[in-house]
C-alpha cells in the first residue's frame, strides 16, 4: 500500500548506512490473527459479564422495592413496580383520560423539538456572533449574565399568561431553556478558535464570511454538539414544566393530573415515558455527533485494546 511506501521512505534515513552486521535472529512474531481472536473473545466475555451484573442490579432494586411496598411501606405513597407496570399497560392499551398516550407523547415531543430547534439555532447564531466580536460581547455581557440568572422555570407561568394554554407557551419555555445552554458553548467555541487556523485562512485568501463558515463554525461544532445533549434534556423539562403550569394535553398534564389524584404510580409511569424519550433522543444526537465529527480521532479506535 502507498501508506507503507511513504513510511518506508521516511524510515529509510533511520538506518545508518554503516550497519552491515547481520541483525541477531529475532523470535518469530506471534500469529496476529490468533492474538486478535483471543482479544475479541476476552472482550465479549467481559461485556457479557457486565450485562449480567447490570441485570442483577435492576432485579435486586425492583425486587426489594416490590417486597418493601408489599410488606413494610405504604404503596399509596411510594407505589411499587407492579403497580407502575399496570398503569403503563393501561395507558398504552386503553388510553389515558385525556386520550391516547401516544397523542400525549407526540404533543410533548412537538413542543420540545420545536423549541429545541428554535432555541439551538438562536443560541448558535448569537453565540458565534458575540464570540467573534469582542466589543459586542463586552457591551452585552451584563445583560446576558442577568438574563441567565433569572429563574427561567418561573417564566413558564408568565408565558401561559402571555401565550395561552396552547403550543406557543410551551415552545417559549423550551426556547428560553435551550437557548442559554447552547449559547454559552457556541460563544466559548467561537472565541477559542485556534489563532493559527484563522491567520492561515486569511493568508489562503478567505473572506470574512468564508472564515466564519469554514473555520469558526467547524471549530465550534464540537462545543455546540456537546451542549445539544444537555439542551435536549432541558427541552423535555421545559415542555413538561410548561404543561404542568397549564395545558390541555401532554405528558406534563398526565403527571400533574396523577399528582392531583394521588396516583403515585401515574407519576412514575409518566417519568418512565419521558426517560425513554430522552434516551432515544440522546441516541439520535450521538449518531449526529459521530457523523459530524468523523474527522476526530475516535476514542474507540485509538484505545482499541488488543492485549
Amino acid at each position: 500500500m502507498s501508506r507503507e511506501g511513504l513510511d518506508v521512505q521516511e524510515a529509510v534515513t533511520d538506518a545508518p548506512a554503516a550497519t552491515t552486521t547481520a541483525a541477531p535472529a529475532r523470535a518469530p512474531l506471534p500469529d496476529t490473527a490468533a492474538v486478535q481472536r483471543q482479544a475479541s473473545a476476552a472482550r465479549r466475555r467481559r461485556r457479557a459479564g457486565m450485562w449480567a451484573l447490570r441485570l442483577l442490579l435492576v432485579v435486586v432494586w425492583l425486587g426489594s422495592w416490590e417486597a418493601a411496598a408489599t410488606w413494610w411501606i405504604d404503596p399509596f405513597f411510594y407505589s411499587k413496580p407492579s403497580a407502575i407496570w399496570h398503569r403503563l399497560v393501561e395507558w398504552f392499551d386503553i388510553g389515558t383520560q385525556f386520550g391516547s398516550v401516544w397523542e400525549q407523547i407526540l404533543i410533548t415531543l412537538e413542543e420540545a423539538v420545536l423549541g429545541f430547534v428554535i432555541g439551538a439555532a438562536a443560541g448558535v447564531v448569537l453565540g458565534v456572533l458575540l464570540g467573534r466580536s469582542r466589543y459586542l460581547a463586552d457591551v452585552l455581557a451584563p445583560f446576558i449574565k442577568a438574563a441567565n440568572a433569572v429563574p427561567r422555570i418561573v417564566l413558564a407561568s408568565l408565558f401561559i399568561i402571555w401565550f395561552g394554554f396552547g403550543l406557543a407557551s410551551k415552545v417559549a419555555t423550551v426556547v428560553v431553556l435551550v437557548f442559554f445552554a447552547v449559547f454559552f458553548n457556541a460563544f466559548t467555541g467561537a472565541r477559542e478558535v485556534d489563532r493559527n487556523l484563522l491567520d492561515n485562512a486569511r493568508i489562503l485568501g478567505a473572506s470574512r464570511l468564508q472564515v466564519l463558515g469554514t473555520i469558526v463554525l467547524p471549530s465550534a461544532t464540537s462545543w455546540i454538539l456537546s451542549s445539544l445533549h444537555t439542551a435536549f434534556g432541558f427541552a423535555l423539562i421545559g415542555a413538561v414544566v410548561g404543561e404542568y403550569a397549564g395545558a390541555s394535553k401532554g405528558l406534563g398534564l398526565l403527571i400533574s393530573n396523577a399528582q392531583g389524584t394521588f396516583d403515585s404510580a401515574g407519576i412514575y409511569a409518566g417519568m418512565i415515558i419521558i426517560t425513554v424519550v430522552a434516551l432515544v433522543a440522546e441516541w439520535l444526537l450521538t449518531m449526529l455527533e459521530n457523523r459530524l465529527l468523523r474527522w476526530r480521532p475516535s476514542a474507540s479506535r485509538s484505545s482499541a485494546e488488543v492485549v
Partner: protein
Amino acid sequence: MTEDPVIRLRGATKRFRSSSGGVHTAVHDLTMTVGRGEFVAVVGPTGCGKSTTLSLVSGLEPPSEGEAVVNGRPVTGIPDGVGYMFQADAILPWRTVLDNVATGPRYRGASKREARERARDWVRRVGLAGFEDYYPHQLSGGMRKRVAMAQTLVNEPSILLMDEPFSALDVQTRALMQDELLRLWSGTGAAVVFVTHDLEEAICLADRVLVMTASPATVKASFTVPLARPRDVERIRLSTEFLDVYREIWESLREEVEKTRERGGKRVA
C-alpha cells in the same frame, strides 16, 4: 540588488501591549530587503521577534512605525501572492488531505472540481499520493507538514514566508523535508523568507542569511552563502565551505544568543 526588491521593510517597528499593561517592543527599526526569487533565511535567538517580522510582511499585523512594502505597494491587508507556512500546524483537522489542499483555490473562487484537480496534483507533488482521503490526525508530523506545504504552494505564491516550519520534526524527517522544499522551490521563481533558529538549516537552504539581534529584533548582519545549487542538504553539511560559513555566522549569532540567555535565563535553542 539592481532590480526592485519584492519585500522591503523600512524602519519597521512593532510594539505590543504586554499582559502586565506595559509596552513590549518586539521589532525595532528593522530594515531589510528581499530580491525576486531570493531565498533568505532569518536566524535569531528564540523570542527575539522573528515571527513578528513575518507578520509585518504578510499583513497580518500592521507596523507601529515605519513601513512594509511588498511588490512595490505598501502592505495594507494581505498582499497578493503571499504564502505563509506557520510554525504550528495550521491545516484544518476536519478536512481530508485533498480538501485541505483545495482550501486556498476554493477561497479564491475556483469551482469545487477545479480546486480538487489542482489539489490532487499538489498532493502528488509533495509525495502524498494515496493519502487524499486521510484526515490530519491519521498522518505523521512530517506528513502533516507536507500537507501544509501543498496547501501553501497550490496558490502559487511569488513570496513564500516560512516560520520555523520544520522545527517540530525529528532530525531525519527534517532533512528530508528540507530537500523536498528545495526541490519544490527550484524553478518557481518565488522569493522565500525562511525563519529558523537552526543555523545549520539556514545555511543549507538559503542564498543569504540574516542574523537578528536579541529582542527587540533588528537585522544585525547579512551573510551571503556561497554554496552552489542544486544542493543536497545531507551532503552539503559536511563540506568545508559549509563549515567556514557556519563558523563565520555563528560568531555573529552567538553574541545575541548569549545576550538572550543572560537576560531571561529563558529557554534558548
